[in-house]
């Protein structure tokens, strides 16, 4: 009977969210994070800065540690600490790239390694029993009302800010010398963008932890590349894939009783592998089985 199927589907997809508040909060958090991560990740991929997200995520650690040492397990303190530390690291790395001849990847690598070591040192010497794993992997199911507000606020701020700097940001990515020659503030736009990357990662860090957050930032963006050509369509698809990964990962974690962070990122990873194999642009399918016909012109 089809009504049985309906009940089953309801049980699978809706019951967990209807029954449990923590699942609802986790879902909203994942949707917000996914929506912000899509466009940010897309630009990072286009700028060939895919690994910068990883570097920034590591720089979150000392900030969160300082917040924890002085204020205990307080979410605002740890978030502000994370944001300050990661923003400082990103701005310093970007500034060194602008001022010196060092390439962006090299300066990011240098600064994130310093901040990471600093973070581990701080946590080790603080003498507290804070669990390092909590920093690294987060806990999306433990998100409360205030954290949810923080995540949604950060995502909204990021999307609004991105809308404001969108046009100069795209030109800065594509032809920076042109932007400079017509008096555009390319350096400023780039710095603002880096701040948004940091903000997105700090808000994702609440839910997924510093390491898993980068997964939701980059995987949908790298996957979307195999389907769409335009920047905007890629960003939209990436945002959609991010949100879908969040929802699907939560359900998998609920039904299969596995940790939620890795489940979300693994689902995003599955979408990436699918796109890589079967996408409509430059995918393995297109390369291995090229169209046998070609047009006249």
């Amino acid at each position, binding site marked *: 009977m089809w009504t049985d199927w309906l009940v089953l589907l309801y049980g699978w997809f809706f019951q967990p969210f209807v029954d449990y508040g923590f699942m609802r909060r986790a879902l909203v958090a994942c949707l917000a994070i996914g929506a912000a991560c899509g466009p940010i990740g897309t630009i990072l991929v286009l700028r060939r800065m895919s690994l910068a997200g990883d570097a920034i995520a590591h720089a979150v650690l000392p900030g969160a540690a300082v917040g924890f040492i002085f204020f205990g397990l307080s979410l605002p303190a740890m978030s502000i600490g994370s944001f300050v530390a990661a923003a400082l690291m990103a701005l310093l790395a970007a500034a060194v790239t602008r001022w010196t001849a060092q390439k962006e990847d090299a300066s990011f690598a240098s600064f994130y390694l310093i901040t990471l070591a600093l973070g581990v040192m701080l946590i080790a010497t603080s003498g507290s029993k804070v669990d390092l794993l909590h920093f690294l992997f987060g806990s999306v199911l433990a998100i409360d009302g205030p954290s949810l507000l923080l995540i949604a606020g950060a995502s909204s701020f990021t999307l609004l800010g991105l809308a404001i*700097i969108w*046009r100069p940001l795209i*030109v800065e990515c594509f032809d920076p010398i042109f932007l400079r*020659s017509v008096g555009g503030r390319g350096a400023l736009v780039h710095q603002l963008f880096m701040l948004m990357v940091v903000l997105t990662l700090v808000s994702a860090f609440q839910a997924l932890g510093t390491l898993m957050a980068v997964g939701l930032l980059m995987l949908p963006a790298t996957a979307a590349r195999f389907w769409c050509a*335009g920047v905007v369509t890629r960003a939209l698809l990436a945002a959609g894939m991010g949100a879908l990964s969040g929802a699907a990962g939560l359900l998998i974690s609920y039904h299969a009783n596995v940790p939620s962070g890795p489940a979300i990122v693994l689902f995003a990873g599955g979408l990436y592998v699918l796109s890589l194999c079967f996408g409509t642009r430059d995918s393995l399918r297109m390369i291995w089985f090229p169209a046998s016909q070609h047009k006249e012109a």
Partner: protein
Amino acid sequence: MSKNMAIRLPPDVIEIHNLTLAYQGHPAVHHVTGRFLPGSLTAIVGPNGAGKSTLLGALSGQLQAAEGSIHFGLGSKSVLAYLPQQSSIDREFPVRVLDVVLLGAWRELKSFSRVSDLMRSRATEALAAVGLVGFERRFIGELSVGQLQRVLFARLLMQDASIILLDEPFNALDTRTAEDLLQVVLTWHREARTVIAVLHDMNMVRAHFPQTLLLAREVIAWGDSAQTLATENLARARQTSEYWDERAPWCARPSGAGAVR
């Protein structure tokens, strides 16, 4: 913000006074003095490493002078357009041809202004003028090197600048593309814009460019093309060493009265 297109101001004389441009203390352009007259069409020629691109970069405002100064007329800030060598563009970036051309209107568009119908029709006209009818919706990654250069010329047309700086604009182009784009340059000259182009093709310079600056770190000759490109000048330009001497003494030439940073 005004929806009208910017009114093109007449170009002014560009005065270069005792200009030195240096990388890590080594001069790439050394004590250059001279002027580009309004509406002139000048070729900058010289051997590799002669500082041609560096001088153009300084004229476009991208580089800081180590010494000396560049003055654009008597304060009226004429609009300047600069086309660097192609390597600075990310060719894989997914933007469409029409959007690239529309960027030429950046001074009116900035971050937020809407693209008007007038701008759109001007961009289409510019594309037609460089021989790219029907290319509007293409991505730049799908273009050949020659087609991309045509697109960048269409963007220059869109910029409607009174001073136009071109860095090796005909490099790696086939004869027909180079010929078409040269016609665009000559049209700019007829419209009394100041055009300065770094070039390698001496025959093209002799045939079409009235003025030439022969540069080999220093000015070898600057003026009428036929005289500038005389055999003895070219021989002198070739003799200049490309290489830096780490043990070179500090340059003791006087910076000259009135040199401003």
